[in-house]
């Protein structure tokens, strides 16, 4: 089993979290959206996996490279 930490590519505000802990996600699905530079930027699942942990919540201000969640595959 592989654990992968997903980090934010950009600084911004968490606009929407699309899944919960334990959910199964498919490659390319939007896991959450970060509002930054007047855009809603999706953070996508890099591969089919399960969401093990979510470190952030809606409206949280996050910095670039901040860990957002862990995926289990």
């Amino acid at each position, binding site marked *: 089993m592989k654990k992968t930490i997903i980090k934010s*590519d950009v600084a911004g505000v968490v606009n929407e979290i699309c899944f919960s802990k334990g959910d199964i996600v498919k490659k390319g699905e939007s896991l959450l959206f970060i*509002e930054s530079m007047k855009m809603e930027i999706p953070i996508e699942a890099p591969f089919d996996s399960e969401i093990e942990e979510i470190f952030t919540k809606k409206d949280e201000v996050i910095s*670039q490279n901040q860990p957002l969640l862990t995926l289990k595959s």
Partner: protein
Amino acid sequence: MTHKNRIEDLKKLNLKIEEMGGSEKLKVRKKAGYLNARERIDLFFDKGTFFEIGKFVTSSNDQDKDKTPADGKITGYGKVSNRKVAVISNDLTVKGASSSNMNTKKISFIKKSAEKLGMPIAFFGESSGARMPDIMGAKGMSQAGQDNTQYIRTRRAPWVSAILGPCYGSSAWYSVLSDFVVMRRGSVLAVSSPKVLSLATNETVDPEELGGWEMHSQTTGIADRIVDTDHEAIALMKSFLSYLPSNNNEIPPYRKDTKDSLKKIDEILSVIPENSKRTYDMREVINLIADDDTSFPMKHNFAKSAVTELARLNGKTVGFIGSNPKFNGGAMDPHACDKITSFLVFCDSFNIPIILLVDTPGFLIGVEGEKQKAPGKIMNFMTALQLCTVPKISVILRKSYGQAYLNMGGGSNSDLVIAWPSAEVSFISPELGVWVVNNKKIHDKDSNYNDYIKKMTHDNSALELARSFGIQDIIDPRNTRQYLINALETFEKKIPNHSMSNWPTTF
């Protein structure tokens, strides 16, 4: 000795050289699924067109004479789709294809002749670096560096490289000097091998971590494309060359659009979300505009907020540059600037017109970017754009803000700037403007806030830009393909200035 005997001896020697480092080593490669240096050449060239030079060169050390067929680097010329191309193929089975004072002469000959004749060069990289012990000591080093043009890259003719095994030293140098680099998974490109590192710095490192495919496709951007086999790598090298002229005095070859590419463009409206905060993939837009199945991405896993792709438009090669809202909302970071700069330099050097597709909220700002010299990178990009003398056409799809507006061809930085009705153009958002000028945010609940916003809000529409000739036309997105075909025909030039042909390949 009779003529017949001499010819017989020559034949035997030829066959012996073609056995390279011996059947045992070749068997091991075959089992691992790797082509050998000669098989790669055969696969690359049109059948029967390869002719070799320097085949009888060996190590200058007499004791290695019989162990160094072709001295580990096979060189010559041939044809790819009936066009002349020179080749340098490293033979790892002969002393690790290490660089010696002899095989360096062969490489130098190939490079100089190819440049003089206006011929691309293909490098099959797989080499352990400088040959030891030959290079050791003062005497060894005195043999090095005898060609004072060895590492000059003038971009008179294209260079293509495949990284097909360990690439250290000169094999790494020629790869990074090339216009296109394809890497096979499992190969490594680095200054020196993990073995050298382990003693020189006591650093123990995994080869993949030192210079594997992930590093070079995602972090450094040195590898344009990643493949699993030698066959795929060679096919991509040939495909890349099909978009390019043989040299910078020619225009790229024409390849008739055999499909009805105009039909699919109607889908373009469904790709672009009407809500301008929502993202989409600019690569889909390129696919819809270009001739069917012709887009050829460069550095496609690196700095994804920018897209750089070769493609054909009505049979002619063009270079698409786009900001990509799918990644970071299309806000370009310093790596994205590097990616675009290198593509601009490349297109300008080989007479490839440029189409800029713009949808960016601005450059990505922040501490990370500043650490990576963001201002310098933005200016490299801007300088390259302004020095480009191939035709440049910008299409503003939605957002175009701030300095990025200029970098993406705004103002007079393209020959022609057009926009879709969904375009919005400004310096920054009104909220940011009020914060900078009036020092107020919405949360401050200042009674004048709405007035400040009103003063800062100006018409940012495509129509307003067109009224003041900031753009030359507004078009229906579904006409984009046909408009660009017509515009490129109008703005077509003969041979551009090539002011950037000496621009470094990595920066």
